[in-house]
């Protein structure tokens, strides 16, 4: 899996629709003055992967991730983050096992099989939260459960206990002073 794109709207200080494109490899730097929103981008990635704890996102309630307004702009009613990944190794016909996904149409009798949808080797995950408390997960545009999203990342290093995202000030945690915490880190990767 390679990271291609992250979009966010109404998420923390990112009131307007914002898009980050990635090559899937290499180093992308994120820079800017204190308080401008860099760590909020990291929170958006943590959140779309299914983070359930508001405290891990530096909030008191999950509702705190929705843009809360400023003196000149009203708060909004929904936060949405989308992540697009590409699986370079997937044969075009194979799709992600989402129970409610639209079936692929194959044209029988032809020497070539028509492949739908066009970008079958991409996976798009979306998470939305409304102020009402309602919450949605989408995979390739279809309603899904948090569980389905976690399944996509099983064994990819992006599971719930993954170290793929190191928050500000947290790098020391991986050297946790408790020998059994360290064991848990290794067991998670195993």
């Amino acid at each position, binding site marked *: *899996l*390679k*990271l291609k794109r992250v979009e966010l709207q109404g998420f*923390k*200080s*990112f*009131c*307007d629709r*914002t898009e*980050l494109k*990635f*090559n*899937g*490899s*290499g*180093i*992308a*730097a*994120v*820079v*800017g*003055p*204190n*308080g*401008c*929103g*860099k*760590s*909020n*981008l*990291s929170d958006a*990635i943590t959140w779309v992967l299914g983070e359930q704890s508001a405290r891990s996102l530096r909030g008191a309630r999950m509702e705190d991730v929705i843009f809360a307004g*400023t*003196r*000149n*702009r009203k708060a909004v009613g929904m936060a949405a983050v989308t992540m697009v990944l590409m699986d370079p190794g997937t044969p075009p016909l194979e799709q992600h096992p989402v129970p409610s996904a639209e079936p692929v149409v194959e044209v029988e009798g032809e020497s070539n099989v028509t492949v739908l949808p066009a970008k079958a080797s991409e996976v798009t995950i979306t998470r939305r939260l409304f102020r009402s408390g309602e919450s949605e997960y989408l995979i390739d545009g279809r309603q899904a459960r948090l569980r389905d999203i976690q399944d996509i990342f099983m*064994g*990819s*290093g*992006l599971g719930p206990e*993954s*170290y*793929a*995202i*190191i*928050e*500000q000030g*947290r*790098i*020391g945690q*991986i*050297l946790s002073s408790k*020998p*059994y915490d*360290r*064991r848990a880190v*290794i*067991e998670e*990767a*195993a």
Partner: protein
Amino acid sequence: SRTRFQEAFTAINENFKQAFQTLFAGGSGEMRLTDESNASESGIDIIASPPGKKLQNVLLLSGGEKSMAAMALLMAIFKFQPSPFCVLDEVDAPLDEANIGRLTKLLKEMAVDTQFIIITHSKKTMEAAQSMYGVTMQEAGISKLVSVKMQAAEAAVA
């Protein structure tokens, strides 16, 4: 299961020893089971000696040395269990320039299969990036993204 843990432990430990030597330009670091005779339940100690210094518990290292040791362990886990991407938020804050140089060199090698996203205030770290996003807050409280040309790196440090 016990075997899976043992295999993971051994593999990650080998990666850790290598990454430590790369990041510290020498010295040695490794993980050890606190209780060799009971591997299925043992905790893990991490010991380290930067070049020329005594071997001791990793928690006794200086602020910057601890961060380098932590990055060595993180890279060791990643090599064993690769992830599509990795977000590092200001891990270079306590590092001197020489250590930032060694860290970014290792990150470039790891970045062949992984998209690294590094939040930083350091020009030296920015120099290692292939692409850069600037985050601005021209309108108070509203974040906006700008794609930054690499030559504008100097100006981007607010």
